[in-house]
């Protein structure tokens, strides 16, 4: 379906621009709430740590398990939340960064092309956006030539970009060396 034409790692999608109107509003409201004693700065820091601890490695574990265990795969596709919980992983949001999301909706092919993924014209692109209840989990395809890989080696192949669906997983050296 698509090709990833180069093998260099991509820069993380990050926020580099100046704080916007709502960022400043958030800071102001947060500081007021702390000042009024409704919660403490430490609680916010703690929550940020909670979110930060949800690393892509957890998702990679889920993907690798789905590749080696057909029953788990079926349960994962039927109910992502409960299947992740089987592995002791709670569901979490990812990729809320505004520029990325906005462009994925209006020019999905261009966004994917920036990651080296070119979707042929005869392939229908379906963009799923999330506004309220539903979260989406991308289950990448298991790459060819990985039949002898252990679950752990497979997990080592799964990158963050593959889990947000912008590149395919490839059987690179990273997996073999683990």
């Amino acid at each position: 379906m698509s090709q990833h034409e180069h093998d260099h790692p991509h820069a993380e999608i990050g926020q580099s621009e100046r704080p916007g109107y709502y960022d400043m509003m958030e800071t102001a409201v947060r500081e007021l709430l702390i000042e009024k004693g409704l919660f403490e700065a430490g609680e916010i820091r703690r929550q940020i740590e909670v979110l930060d601890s949800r690393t892509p490695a957890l998702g990679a574990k889920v993907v690798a398990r789905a590749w080696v265990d057909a029953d788990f795969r079926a349960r994962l596709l039927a109910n992502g939340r409960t299947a992740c919980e089987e592995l002791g992983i709670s569901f979490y949001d990812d990729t809320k960064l505004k520029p990325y999301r906005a462009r994925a909706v209006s020019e999905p092919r261009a966004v994917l092309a920036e990651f080296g993924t070119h979707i042929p014209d005869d392939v229908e692109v379906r963009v799923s956006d999330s506004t309220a209840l539903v979260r989406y989990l991308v289950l990448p395809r298991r790459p060819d030539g990985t039949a002898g890989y252990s679950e752990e080696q497979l997990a080592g192949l799964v990158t963050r970009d593959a889990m947000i669906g912008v590149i395919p997983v490839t059987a690179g050296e990273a997996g073999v060396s683990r």
Partner: protein
Amino acid sequence: MSGIVLATGEAPPFRRGDRVRVMTRAPVGHYRVPTYLRGKSAVVERVIEPAAIDNEEEAYGRNAGSKRHYYRIIVPMTSIWPNYAGSARDNLRIEVFETWLERIAS
């Protein structure tokens, strides 16, 4: 199920395949429907179960227990973005609350 009387709004009025239009409204405050979708026609892909509270009302603590459905709808990209670069078959799938949808006679 016989004997069960459904409350108003409990049964989803739209079904898979129904043609709907996203209403053109411009509420002030918390809303969940992207501006670019207002007034656009769509097809219902599926009803999202179970019924849910209206997040837009919930933001203000107003709900009084009423629940309706979200629908996953399909909107052609070319109808949203006039200069869309890509296949005419490309489309957006997005969840929209019942109060934002009206039926289009087919």
